[in-house]
């Protein structure tokens, strides 16, 4: 981008499909960099970090917990430390708490006040997580929300909804699928979906026939 003189007003170049906010954000960056309030390089690095985030990191935590019961206990005790143990970046949030789904308990996470989400481990939250209907109904009608997402819990399962209202970020450890015995940690991680770590889905089922189905 070429330098320009101060005081020179310029018509923003906008793509017709962009909202007005796009030009506004770019102009804001220009102003703040010019004023020396922020550095452009810091902005670039942050964008790079954001696009590097994905649910694969969270899935690695879950897969390790599935195969290693002692790791699972460490994950439940301190998810930030457990992430660091695997060489993962737990993000800037001071505390991440992993909660475990069992035969008796299913967890689901929401932020009714805004959109708090463990994005270092899951990537950016999906639009629906930030939406007004989800934020509203996740606490007042969570079983209805799960039905919309295609999840029906057994009658004897206790549903626990966690509303992230403060500094804690929550990550759900979904239940390991039955018939996943013998799968490698990497294969197990591939079953762990983002939505299963939010609590609105179960993990993917292993392919029929398990590992053998991969041959031929």
């Amino acid at each position: 981008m070429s330098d320009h003189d101060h005081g020179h007003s310029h018509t923003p170049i906008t793509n017709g499909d962009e909202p007005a906010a796009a030009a506004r954000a770019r102009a804001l960056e220009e102003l703040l960099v010019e004023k020396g309030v922020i550095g452009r390089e810091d902005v670039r690095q942050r964008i790079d970090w954001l696009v590097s985030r994905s649910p694969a990191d969270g899935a690695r935590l879950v897969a390790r917990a599935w195969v290693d019961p002692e790791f699972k206990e460490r994950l439940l005790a301190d998810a930030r430390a457990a992430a660091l143990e695997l060489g993962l970046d737990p993000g800037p949030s001071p505390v991440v708490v992993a909660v475990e789904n069992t035969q008796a308990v299913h967890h689901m996470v929401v932020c009714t006040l805004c959109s708090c989400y463990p994005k270092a481990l899951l990537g950016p939250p999906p639009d629906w997580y930030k939406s007004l209907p989800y934020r509203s109904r996740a606490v007042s009608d969570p079983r209805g929300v799960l039905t919309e997402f295609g999840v029906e819990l057994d009658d004897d399962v206790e549903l626990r909804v966690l509303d992230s209202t403060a500094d804690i970020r929550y990550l759900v450890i979904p239940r390991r699928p039955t018939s996943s015995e013998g799968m490698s940690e990497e294969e197990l991680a591939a079953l762990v979906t983002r939505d299963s770590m939010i609590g609105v889905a179960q993990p993917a089922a292993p392919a029929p026939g398990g590992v053998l189905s991969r041959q031929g």
Partner: protein
Amino acid sequence: MKYRAGQRVRVAARPHEGHHRTPGYVKGKTGSVERVHASFPNPETRAYGRDGLPKQPLYLVGFAQRDLWPDSRGHPGDRIYVDVFEHWLEVAE
């Protein structure tokens, strides 16, 4: 930390004009402490440019979903958990 895990607590029902992180749907409701978290800077003062000190103890408080929404189609055992700062909690009988 004033409260301990398992203790029954009530969320204060007081009005609060400025920024705060206690959702309206739990104000005045009674639940129990599920977890005692650490202490964190107070968002209510941090939101206005102050440093949020002293840090405030934070608790994960669990409520019966039916206590919050009597008409909901949840199951009797379903629960809602909310992180609430100590200064929003009172001892419940």
